[in-house]
């Protein structure tokens, strides 16, 4: 693609890469669960933009239809995951009054209360 500088596909591929980075930061460094879902969607569209841009390397041929179809599928899948994540978060907020997972007090009554929170 470097040979085609001046052509917008390179620009949008780099934009996609930047969006992935920005979204990833929100996903790891922010704690409000809704913001993390939002960040997931930013990463997702960054990935798609990157993909779509690499599929438009040859303006003489037009945009490659295969990535376009895969991206549409990906958008629906991302929407499905987002909807489930948001439903889980609203449910969790209603049950616990919290909007982030951190500082969760261990609960002795719960048979599943993990007493280990280390690791990745």
């Amino acid at each position: 693609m470097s040979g085609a500088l001046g052509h917008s596909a390179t620009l949008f591929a780099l934009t996609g890469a930047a969006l992935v980075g920005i979204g990833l930061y929100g996903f790891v460094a922010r704690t409000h669960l809704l913001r993390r879902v939002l960040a997931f969607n930013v990463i997702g569209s960054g990935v798609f933009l990157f993909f779509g841009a690499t599929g438009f390397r040859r303006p003489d041929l037009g945009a490659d239809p295969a990535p376009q179809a895969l991206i549409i599928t990906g958008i629906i899948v991302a929407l499905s995951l987002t909807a489930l994540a948001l439903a889980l978060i609203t449910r969790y907020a209603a049950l616990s009054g919290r909007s982030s997972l951190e500082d969760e007090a261990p609960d002795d009554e719960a048979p599943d209360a993990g007493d280990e929170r280390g690791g990745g």
Partner: protein
Amino acid sequence: MTPALVFDGLLALLAVAAAMAAIGGRDLFGSVAFFIVYGLLIAIAWVRLDAIDVALAEAAIGAGLTGILLISALARVERTASSGESGEGGRLAKIAAALLCAGVAGALAWAALALDPQGAGLTPLISEALPQAGVGNPVTAVLLNFRAYDTLLESIVLLFALVAVWSLADDGNWGGLPGLRQHARSDGVLATFGRLLPPFGLVVAVYLVWAGSENPGGAFQGGTVLAAIWLLVAMAGITELPRVSSLPLRAALVFGPAFFLAVGAIGALAGTFLGLAPAAAKAIILAVEAGLTLSIAATLALLVAGSPQRTQG
């Protein structure tokens, strides 16, 4: 500097700025607003990348429905949970995270620039096979013929997202009505809106599905518009969404994917799973799309409405 490059550069800059504001902001409502703007800008970027089908999907789903899901989730969470992002990591952790993310973005950029600038992907193969696909829009041909299996699974993914959302209801409300009761002043702007917009939306949706076989559009874009219209009518307090226990509703939700699956199975009995004879391909694809549109519209509308929250209307 051509005007095209100026435009694209500005667009990219704005999209990055909107994304940063959505991620970095303090106020979540503002972040969601930025996210919707971000989606609009990305949709325009898709137009610039000659991917009109994706632009339609992004405008309808990426910016539209995802934004609306976020707005309503935010409203629900803020009513029940303490706000504030306490316990954010220290400065050092943030710097480490930022470095990691910059590294990932850099690696991607590096990989993108290392790609062969003459790579044509599948474009030539798709144009060659298009006459046998039954539809003239190559993206629809990939979605509903060449890679129909992906689309079949994806329609099932969407449906099961709804089943999963429903599974988070309160036990006592099971079988009841999705979401809380919506109301509006009967002759107010919202109600008028809810009466005026549906005919418009219906025409647009049908047009999108029909156009999808030859031009950009298709079941997902059309289904989203239908869902939006249905929700608008419900939000204006004109109708109620059906109970989750309603059999006609469940049949409508399942119909599209089930029909698609049946087409695949019939193909298998005739020799090829999801095989479409070129002569019948157009008719079958249109029928599958019509079924999918119906189910997608119902699924998306109920996804936005949420799990059942009351048993009485």
